[in-house]
């Protein structure tokens, strides 16, 4: 009898290793399906496993098994009628010859290169550029404030002919200030370059958002939400108040009316509308922006209806106002 530390192995176990799939019955190897030992074939099988799918060797084993009960330690096989069993140790009986490990390592490494390549998201660069732009905004404000303050410290003009009792300002300090002024200019030009780069690339990466909102506003929304993937998961109601967090939370505390719009206020259609209509327009725009974000996140091409639908709604809102208002002598 076996002790509790050594439970009996399952009667029939499917074992998958990197070089094939095997059926072990009562401690004996009864079927061996070996994978071809070349780098390309091995890499192909690695990719299948990484995607959670079966490799051809496992399929052959399952086929011959024809529904007989078997155990495994590999959860990939569970949807195919094999039982997950903690006693299955995934070990081959006896001295099962193992092919050269270097071959396996090479295949794993090339699979890793490909996996990284596939997982790489180029839009991360747009997001970094947008955040860099926001960083520059902050720095620009800081430096500009300091320069304004510093410029106000210049000595007042001395009255004609009177000798000044003041000691002159150290020229080294004034040179320092000049350098800071140059830096401010540099920040401005870098900011403009980033803006131009974003404006150029965003319509390609997020065509729907850019078309609906314009590249600048689209970029700001993306930065605020933390990328296209995150923005695509936000409900329209959240998009409507992105950028108005403070007003929104004041509202939640019962101290303020709900904000009509956050960043979306930057949209010309909303900015130019009368106050009473901005809420309606922002709501409509947020709804379309949510759809646009989801289209862009899935890599869909430009969908022309979004813009038209929003424009139609804007016209409708406007005509409702005109219809409500009695004809007045002002208009």
């Amino acid at each position, binding site marked *: 009898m076996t002790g509790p530390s050594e439970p009996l192995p399952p009667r029939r176990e499917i074992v998958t290793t990197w070089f094939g799939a095997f059926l072990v019955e009562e401690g004996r190897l009864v079927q061996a399906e070996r994978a071809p030992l070349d780098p390309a074939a091995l890499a192909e099988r690695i990719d299948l*496993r990484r995607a959670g799918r079966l490799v051809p060797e496992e399929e052959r084993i399952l086929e011959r098994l024809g529904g007989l009960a078997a155990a495994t330690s590999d*959860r990939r096989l569970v949807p195919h009628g094999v039982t997950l069993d903690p006693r299955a140790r995934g070990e081959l009986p006896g001295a099962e010859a193992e092919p050269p490990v270097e071959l396996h390592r090479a295949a794993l*490494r090339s699979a890793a290169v490909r996996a990284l390549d596939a997982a790489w998201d180029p839009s991360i660069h747009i997001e970094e550029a947008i955040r860099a732009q926001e960083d520059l905004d902050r720095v620009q404000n800081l430096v500009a404030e300091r320069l304004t303050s510093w410029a106000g410290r210049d000595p007042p003009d001395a009255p004609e002919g009177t000798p000044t009792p003041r000691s002159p300002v150290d020229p080294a300090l004034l040179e320092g200030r000049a350098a800071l002024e140059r830096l401010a200019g540099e920040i401005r030009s870098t900011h403009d370059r980033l803006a131009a780069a974003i404006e150029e690339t965003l319509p390609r990466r997020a065509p729907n958002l850019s078309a609906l909102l314009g590249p600048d506003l689209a970029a700001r929304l993306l930065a605020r939400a933390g990328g296209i993937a995150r923005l695509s998961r936000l409900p329209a109601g959240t998009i409507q108040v992105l950028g108005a967090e403070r007003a929104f939370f004041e509202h939640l505390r019962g101290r303020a009316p709900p904000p009509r719009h956050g960043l979306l206020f930057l949209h010309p259609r909303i900015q130019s509308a009368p106050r009473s209509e901005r809420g309606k327009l922002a709501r409509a725009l947020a709804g379309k922006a949510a759809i646009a974000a989801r289209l862009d996140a899935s890599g869909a091409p430009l969908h022309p209806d979004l813009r038209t639908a929003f424009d139609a709604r804007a016209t409708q809102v406007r005509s409702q106002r005109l219809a409500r208002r009695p004809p007045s002598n002002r208009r």
Partner: protein
Amino acid sequence: MDVTEWAGVYREGRQLYTRNAVPGRPVHDEELRRADGLEYRAWDPFRSKLAAYLLHAAPPGLWNGCRSVLYLGGAHGTTASHLAEALPEATVYVVEKSPTSFAPLLRLSRDRPSLVPILADAQLPERYAADVGRVDFLYQDVAQRQQAAIFVENARACLARSGRGLLMLKVRSVTQRQPAPVILRSARSTLTSARLAVLHESGLAPFSQEHVAISIRG
């Protein structure tokens, strides 16, 4: 340079070292030191919780004789590179799920043939178990709520019979709402109810706050 009770790890005073597998090149900006015609890399306990654990009187021979290692949560590969150097005969499979962290890890593995990087999620061991096979040593350092359960699942899928393991429990990744001893107790019970025997436990202060190293045997 003095040998220690852990294979492949050397020390001079309080500072730990491993033999540099790529002489002349550090992995980040750690100190390189030549002694007896060989080059050693300093192993920083503030960067690597494994080094911190060794300095906290880890059991002697923690990984001695291991032929294969599964390392979950490889990040940029700082710790994994030292482990690979400490066990030059072993294959070290490093699982990391973030592509951003994976890129430096992949670069690192180019010069170190025994280091094998795998871009996968440690929560789904079935996706890499067949490639890893049964390992002698399982190391985990991931910031997940279900850390103990992930460790147990990987031990089930990949740890050889009576293999050893080390779980670096990030207490605050489990929950913010409970005191550390409660979190630790529940992690311990997750491990023992999966028939993993807890051998040794240690906090990692002052090198890492709110981390506990749990050494186990399967």
